[in-house]
């Protein structure tokens, strides 16, 4: 099951440049929340702060409180590796391990975590590929084909399967469909909709129609601040803030 995410007073910097300003945002469990905004608004930085990916960039740092279920992501005893296991991430460009087989791609995270039981491993790989809606397309050549041999859309679903294999509670997606054709995009979108039964999903997207299609809640970021956060229907039909309206109607950004 997914867990809720509660962000309070989150600030982030790249060197001396502050890229996020006191973000407060609550993302409910088993919902899809979209984060939209123009380039450079801080939306990617925001999601990368949720699983402590932000700090992997030199001179980047973050302050504030992020609670994912009962886990205090920035608490003193928090372990970034454990954080990233519980909060999976999928990126814009599919990045499977190119020479590994499909099976090994999905099993990679589990093996890294010391998982050795072959039968259980097989079960988890199958479950993850099914959840990622890829199983039927690859089940006959799990060990024969490499990750790189798949199409772009399949590679992205493979990456989703890989993220799901370690059984996270939250799935962060940074522009997961922007490099895909419309058919693959609609598969990913349908998948996101299914995944929320098991996970809490946060998706960054440039594509507002995509946000409107997949997310129940949408937050609009501008210059590192969260301008408006509401039900998706409200944001796209009657936004409260003029800046949100100007952005989603294409008047700027």
């Amino acid at each position, binding site marked *: 099951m997914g867990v809720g995410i509660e962000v309070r007073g989150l600030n982030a910097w790249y060197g001396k440049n502050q890229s996020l300003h006191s973000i407060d945002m609550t993302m409910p469990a088993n919902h899809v929340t979209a984060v939209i905004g123009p380039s450079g608004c801080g939306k990617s930085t925001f999601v990368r702060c949720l699983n402590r990916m932000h700090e992997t960039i030199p001179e980047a740092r973050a302050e504030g409180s992020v609670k994912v279920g009962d886990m205090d992501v920035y608490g003193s005893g928090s372990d970034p590796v454990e954080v990233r296991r519980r909060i999976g991430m999928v990126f814009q460009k599919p990045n499977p391990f190119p020479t590994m087989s499909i099976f090994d791609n999905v099993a990679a995270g589990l093996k890294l975590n010391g998982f050795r039981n072959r039968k259980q491993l097989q079960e988890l790989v199958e479950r993850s590929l099914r959840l990622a809606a890829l199983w039927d397309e690859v089940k006959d050549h799990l060990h024969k084909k490499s990750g790189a041999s798949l199409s772009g859309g399949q590679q992205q679903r493979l990456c989703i399967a890989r993220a799901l294999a370690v059984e996270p509670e939250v799935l962060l997606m940074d522009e997961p469909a922007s490099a895909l054709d419309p058919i693959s995009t609609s598969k990913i979108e349908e998948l996101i909709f299914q995944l929320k039964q098991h996970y809490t999903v946060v998706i960054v997207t440039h594509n507002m129609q995509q946000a409107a299609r997949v997310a129940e809640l949408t937050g609009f970021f501008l210059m590192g601040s969260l301008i408006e956060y509401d039900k998706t229907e409200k944001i796209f039909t009657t936004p409260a803030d003029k800046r949100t309206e100007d952005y*989603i109607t*294409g*008047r700027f950004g």
Partner: protein
Amino acid sequence: MRSRFQQGLDDLKEKLLRMGGLAEQAIDRATEAYRSRDSKFCQMVLTGESAINEAERDIDELALDLLAMQQPMAVDLRFILAVLKINADLERVGDQAVNIAQRVLDLISEPEIELPVDIPRMADAVSTMVQRALESFLDGKAEVAEAVLQMDGIVDRMKDEAFVVLVQKMTGDCSCTRQALDVLLIARALERIADHATNIAEDVIFWVRGADVRHGGAHYRE
């Protein structure tokens, strides 16, 4: 890309206002036909209807294209939805003007009699409502649209009064039944036009404020 979209929205507005002009003209001609008992005005209304129908199709088509090609959001989406609904209302206004013209043609084929109903006064009120509703659409003025909503009750009362006095008249003197019935139907057509003006005003408020004010009260999206 966007400026082309903006151009599309401007075209849509202009087309709708032009259609509004045709609908207003139809009401005025129908009213003039009643005042002057001149069938020439009735014919103008009847022949003018096809232009209104054509405008309706044209506007629907452009609105559909904009929805499909530009995927508008927020205020733009509300604007196009409002245009589609106003378009249908204006077409119905045209139909009601035709109904009035047909009743007037029937009236003038009968001997002229005195009836205790002031149709021109009612038509003035209705025409003002349509004008104001279109004005509110032109400038996106929700407060003008609100004033239109206030006027609807007055026209409703005028129609109710007409109904009472005309039924009395028909009951007392059956030689004038046909004329009284014509006038009654004209009053009803005018009242319907006022309802359409009300709908238009509500759609303008929805476009500008994002509030649904139909059926009394303001409903804002939660």
